[in-house]
């Protein structure tokens, strides 16, 4: 198995507050990883480290064996795409103009878009089922459509690794299922995926492994069955087991159902 991203003894702190401590992990090809954990556990930070937009305080993050700090962001963006949680666009760009930005790492300073660029954009929009939205204004789309268009931008980068930050956020249950289907589809296309996930009940067989992050504890890795067990989660999320028995029961049921 080829390792795409490797974290070696990675520490990261915002100011003096350590979010990630001594992280060792590997993202290998064709994995589909759900990153879970309570708020502030460092899920987004982990994705940013993998995308090279922030650098670790200690340790090393490497892409296919090369230290990310030694690579140009442009080179990283040619194989790693990061889809952020929120994107604010001040002007009324169309979906197509928005997706076009995914070609940025491939364009020369004075060159325009070429055939291969249009091909990548078209493919990205077809996969995410946003081709029919291409002339619509991004800011006028619904939450679910916007989410798919953001992923289309990431796919236009033709990445080997797609990092999704909370792709299910603000989506209704129907759109959440569509998103799971999309992740499944992309996985079958051979794209390695890491997604931070808030709603544990949405993690099913689509994901090959789950990374559980919790503050002040080493990250746990395992299959969904190993990680998504009430006793593990109760510890990580710091919720007293019988504090809200009915709610806990419901969550437990939903999770058993999902697995």
């Amino acid at each position: 198995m080829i390792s795409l991203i490797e974290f070696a003894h990675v520490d990261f702190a915002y100011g003096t507050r350590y979010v990630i401590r001594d992280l060792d992990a590997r993202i290998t090809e064709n994995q589909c990883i759900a990153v879970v954990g309570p708020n502030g556990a460092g899920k987004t930070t982990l994705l940013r480290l993998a995308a090279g937009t922030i650098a670790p305080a200690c340790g090393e993050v490497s892409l296919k064996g090369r230290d990310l700090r030694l690579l140009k962001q442009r080179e990283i963006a040619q194989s790693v795409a990061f889809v952020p949680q929120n994107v604010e666009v001040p002007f009324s760009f169309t979906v197509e103009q928005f997706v076009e930005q995914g070609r940025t790492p491939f364009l020369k300073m004075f060159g325009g878009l070429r055939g291969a660029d249009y091909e990548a954009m078209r493919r990205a929009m077809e996969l995410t089922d946003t081709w029919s939205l291409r002339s619509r204004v991004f800011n006028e789309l619904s939450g679910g459509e916007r989410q798919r268009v953001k992923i289309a931008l990431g796919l236009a980068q033709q990445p080997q690794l797609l990092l999704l930050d909370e792709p299910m956020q603000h989506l209704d249950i129907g759109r959440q299922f569509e998103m799971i289907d999309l992740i499944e589809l992309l996985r079958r296309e051979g794209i390695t995926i890491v997604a931070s996930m808030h709603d544990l009940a949405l993690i099913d067989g689509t994901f090959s492994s789950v990374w559980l992050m919790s503050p002040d504890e080493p990250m746990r890795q395992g299959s969904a069955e190993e990680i998504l067990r009430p006793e593990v989660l109760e510890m990580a999320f710091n919720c007293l087991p019988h504090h809200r028995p009915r709610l806990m029961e419901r969550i437990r049921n939903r999770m058993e159902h999902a697995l």
Partner: protein
Amino acid sequence: MAREVTEERAIYKDTHHRRPYWLLGILSASVVLAALIAAGMGAVHVPVWLLARQLIGGGALSEDQRMILFSIRLPRILASLLVGGALSVSGLLFQGLFRNPLADPYVIGSSGGAVLGASIGVFLLPSISAAGFGTIALLAFVGALGSITLVYWLARVDGRTPVVALLLAGFAVSTMLSYSSYFLEVLDRDFGTGMRVLASWLHGTIAQPTWPQLAIVTFMLAIGLAGSVPLARSLNTLALGEEYATHLGLSVQQTRIAVIVIGSVLTAAAVALGGLISFVGLIVPHMLRMVLGPDHVRLLPAAALSGALFLLVADTVARTVIAPAELPVGVLTALIGGPFFLYLLRKTKQGGLS
């Protein structure tokens, strides 16, 4: 099926990515036409058809008419075209940089420095000139660039320049510099002559430029436009926000510096020729965005042409409407631009500014 897809693909490329050639064509033709009409207007009327014949074959005009045309009207027409184009392109660049359609060429403080520079020129050193530029124009140019350099230096923290810091420092420096020109006004010993000169400059007046002046500004505008071409695409990426643009491989800091340098030189050049002309740099890019959408690659050439056209028309009206007296052109752009801007604000209240 395969064929259908190919056809659709062809249409996709054709309709969505060509430049707005039709609009650029119409704008270029309008600029030429407006320039011809403007050249004929004034105290000595010169018919358009005579002008056209003069330009094609020569010899159609009398000596007086030729003199008026080549040493008075054409320089002024060219100046208004240059100033309008420079302000409009600079406004477009700053709006893209700040990701805000309400930014204008003076947003990071060039106007304050220009006012102070011009005041020094008016009250302290009234009689030096270089390359056809008088002290007012030269010092306004230096002041504009100087205040932006100061703002940039103040806003820089750890090798980064956050846009909010730029805006705030720009506001503070600009206000301080323009008000400090008051102390120079006190020195005015010519019974208010200097005050009148300064007032007309502050309101934006395209004075009588000389050909060397025009050549220098044309050169600056050409450099600025050429430098803006690769920036236009970067501004599209920057619209996604700093972090996302950085992830996509855009060097945000370099883009920012390039926009500030080019935008400032364009603004300073415009200020040197025409004083403080308001609203052109704000409204022209805004209007075009309504027609062409927000893609900076499409907007850039159209912004240069429309800005030029708009200011030529405004200046021609300004110098003829109350002839033999003249209105400062800035008064006119404010009177046209202000209401139009408010109209846009109200119209786009619900949908947000486009």
